[in-house]
């Protein structure tokens, strides 16, 4: 049936066409459609019965003359050809080359939807990845195989932070990074895509990057395939070729909006803000492809980037993402406006896998308590800052004034760092102790007395009452 062209479209609406009189079409199969001027469009069968087949057309159904539309059912799902040669290449959202070079020829073709990983086959991620960024390494550490998104907003430097992570990420004790990178961009501008390309080039990883691009002006429905194609490539690199793969995907908000657009066309019942009820499961199919597998060497570590509409973390996209990923790094407009780079809001940020990847055998034995203390002290310091804004800093008690100073120093020196500053975890931890030394020991109850004795350099200065 692959070679038969049907001219039986009975109706078209939005991005969907209905075909009649096509027997035995498989659910989820790919479709190639030729319009009256001979232009090819791609599609996917989303619903099928004896009488009718519903096809989603990626490039839309605009200007389709149903009388002169020929449709072929390719009898296979969307697949990606895979070989070592994908490294250094650039593909579109559907996995076709867009770098002018020949297509990948390989017998190895995989369904881009993947298959669910058996939970009994997973290995728990435990190896600490040093990103060289203190706010991440010290307080929200990344581990190999984790999915840790960047929650950002329009105009914030999430691309620069993501690029810095890609440049600097390494396992402790290893010299250069041994990652390969799979980069997927969907719904972003060509400027953003170029920024990443240049930054990969500068750091000399370009020949170890596989790119999948679907830019803002390209077919919306193809956006739904882009992360899936990228992750299929990542799985091949990780589990067939034993690479440690870092997957950067941007922007998940554009992806979810594309999904909503399609859901509306399909007439699916909306849940919140017009997004379909299955947005959670759909995002999970993507995010859960990160991880490690027992007895396999490679791994997939995932850094999705998403912009929060109106900076609202309770918006369905960041909300559902947070419910699936293993934490989140939240960027703050306030810090950014104050000139802090990277503007990581550490309190709402979280790494759930941190607790199992830091400490004695991984980073340093004081790390867990130290991180917990930084959170507590900074939370308290922000409270004091809020109070100072109301009653004036002069009215603060002496103890509170120390916290105020701590807040400023912490943001400038710990969170803030240069874009090319690659701090080792020890530098990060020592810096943290330096800053905590601004606070009296009795305020530091999350660290042990032994740790205080060893690292804390409290010098009570004589203060004017």
């Amino acid at each position, binding site marked *: 049936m692959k070679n038969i062209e049907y001219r039986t479209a009975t109706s078209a609406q939005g991005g969907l066409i209905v075909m009649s009189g096509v*027997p*035995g079409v*498989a*659910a*989820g199969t790919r479709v190639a459609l030729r319009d009256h001027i001979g232009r090819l469009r791609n599609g996917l069968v989303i*619903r*099928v*019965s*004896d009488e009718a087949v519903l096809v989603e057309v990626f490039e839309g159904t605009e200007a389709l003359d149903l009388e002169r539309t020929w449709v072929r059912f390719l009898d296979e*799902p969307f697949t990606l050809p895979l070989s070592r040669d994908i490294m250094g290449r650039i593909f579109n959202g559907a996995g076709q080359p867009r770098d002018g070079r020949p297509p990948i020829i390989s017998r190895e073709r995989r369904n881009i*939807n993947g*298959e*669910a*990983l*058996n*939970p*009994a*086959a*997973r290995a*728990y991620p435990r190896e600490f990845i040093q990103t060289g960024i203190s706010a991440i390494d010290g307080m929200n550490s990344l581990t190999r*195989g984790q999915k840790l998104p960047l929650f950002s907003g329009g105009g914030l430097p999430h691309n620069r932070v993501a690029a810095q992570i890609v440049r600097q990420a390494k396992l402790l004790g290893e010299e250069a990074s041994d990652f390969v990178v799979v980069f997927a961009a969907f719904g972003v501008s060509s400027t953003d895509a170029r920024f990443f390309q240049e930054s990969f080039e500068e750091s000399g990883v370009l020949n170890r990057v596989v790119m999948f691009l679907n830019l803002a002006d390209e077919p919306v429905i193809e956006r739904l395939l882009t992360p899936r194609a990228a992750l299929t490539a990542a799985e091949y690199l990780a*589990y067939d070729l034993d690479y440690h793969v870092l997957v950067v995907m941007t922007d998940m908000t554009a992806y979810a909006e594309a999904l909503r657009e399609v859901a509306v066309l399909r007439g699916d*019942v909306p*849940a*919140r803000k017009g997004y379909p*009820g*299955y947005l*959670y*499961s759909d995002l*999970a*199919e993507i995010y*859960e492809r990160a991880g490690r*597998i027992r007895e396999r060497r490679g791994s997939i570590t995932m850094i999705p980037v998403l912009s929060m509409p109106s900076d609202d973390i*309770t*918006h*369905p996209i960041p*909300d*559902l993402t*947070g*419910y*699936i990923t*293993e*934490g989140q790094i939240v960027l703050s407009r306030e810090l950014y406006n104050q000139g802090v780079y990277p503007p990581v809001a550490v*309190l709402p940020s*979280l790494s759930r*896998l941190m607790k*199992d990847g830091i400490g004695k055998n991984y980073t340093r034995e004081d790390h867990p308590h130290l991180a917990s203390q930084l959170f*507590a002290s900074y*939370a308290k310091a922000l409270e004091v800052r*809020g109070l100072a804004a*109301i009653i004036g800093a002069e*009215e603060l*008690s002496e103890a*509170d004034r120390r916290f105020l100073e701590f807040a400023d120093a912490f943001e400038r020196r710990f969170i803030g760092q240069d874009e090319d500053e690659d701090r080792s975890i020890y530098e990060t931890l020592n810096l943290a102790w330096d800053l905590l030394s601004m606070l009296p*020991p*009795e*305020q530091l*109850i999350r660290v*042990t*007395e032994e740790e205080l004795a060893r690292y804390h350099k409290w010098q009570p200065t004589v203060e004017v009452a």
Partner: protein
Amino acid sequence: MGKIVEINGPIVRLQLPQTVIGEQVRVGALGLVGEVIGRDGDTALAQMYENTEGLRPGEAAEGLGHALSVELGPGLLNAIFDGVQRPLSAVRAKSGDRIARGVEVAALPRDRRWAFRPEARHEPEARLEGGDVLGTVQETTSIEHRILVPPDVHGELLEIAPAGEYTVDETIARARLRDGSIRKLTLSHRWPVRTPRPFRRRDHAVKPLITGQRILDTFYPLLKGGKAAIPGPFGAGKTMLQQQIARWCNAEIVIYVGCGERGNELTDVLEFMPELKDPHTGRPLMERTLLVANTSNMPVVAREASIYVGITLAEYFRDQGYDVVMVADSTSRWAEALREVAGRLGQMPVEEGYPAYLGSRLASFYERAGRVETLSGGHGSVTLIGAVSPPGGDFSEPVTSHTKEIIQTFWALSKELADARHYPAVDWLESFSGYVPSAAKWWAENVDPQWEAARNEALELLSESEELARIVNLVGVEALSSEQRWTLEAAGLIKEGVLQQAATDAVDSFASPEKQYVLLDAMLQIRAQGMKLVKLGAPARRLLQLPLLAQARRWKSQYPSEEMAALKARIAEIPGIFERVALEYAERPAEV
């Protein structure tokens, strides 16, 4: 034999006369399994437990003649099953790291032989009733598996096998049923998951479930056989809290259902459980644990089923006379699966896309919790603890608000506490427990008669400090009187010295009831002693310099539950510390 007519995501329409709602069907060349959820003339509507990609109209379909059921017998413990009870380790051995569609693997191992010991009192021709114990199999060192007569069997025992080793398929007894037919009984039987297993009558739940978590046991207790919910936004600690309960609670069997959540969290349980020891029996925790996993990337219909698979397994162990705890993470994902299927069926949504029957489905699910007198006259319980994941952390959404009306214990997690890394982030103002009076009896008899008074005092102190904190936020701490400042400090002691309890702290991860009470009482003593001085004119500023205050906050991590004598010795020093301060002020006139 019938055939497929239409495929719409997980929903398929079949031309298949004579099936009934709830019946299992197998369709297509891959042999995918699903269940009938609607009928219209000769066609049946089925929801499929697996992805339907590649299925075609015209492919074959057949009814399997039974409803979705689980296999119950030795071999359940220590295992991890998917949402329709396929054993995931065996599935991995068969289909590799990824779950291939259409794999068929029996729930219980077929070739394993179990040492069966018949119950002595069974004699031929004795009456046999559903729920009777035929004999036992020592399944793990800590758990004796009691082999039950299936609940629907009533008749007379014809013969029972002698002690020996049997597989789950071999006949161990024969019975003549009331209708005269002969039924062979084996070590295992099947039960449909959507039908609650029968029992004689409900019993009052009387004993608290001890979880070792102070904010739960001491402040918002749950009883064995009770129902609890843990709502909270993402990252607030629902999973950690449920894992803590699964680790440390004093139930005999723990069923952990990962419903639409992360794969790594199940891996985590699988990796740590075998290494940890049950604080109550000293045996590896995995021996009493059973996992049901339908992670978020697995098919959504099986997710809906996984909750019922879990609760049926729980009831089965209850019927053997055990106290069972089932944790379900997260019931919201189950509700969403329900919503997704309802949407595909074109059912009218009422709130946020959920069908009108959401509330009643939730209620009848939680109704399966409880302490009961079993069919054989024993006692067992199922305690149900469901996580709820409200969108945007908004507790007024449908799943949270329906659940809140059904359960008795509500452990509300707060984003503010979690952001400040106050764990467990259980909000002491939003949470509640309807079981305090029953729990109080147990604490008074087993730990300290003052338990309820101490609990009440602490809760009052916390809400008083909330008021004071509001004032401070307006005008600063200096505006408070000494008494108020000391009250604030005492509340801080309760929060940091008692309520905060890091799961990651090896010493404090579990606190015995005694330790829970000793710590709480210690903080209240400090409060009282200090307050006495403040009332005598000592300024709070002086008391706040006491090193005792920082020390007391560390006691929880310094004294494990077994070393209460040492902690009590420390606490005995408290009056002396305050007396020394009192002396300073006895010599001088009181400062303002």
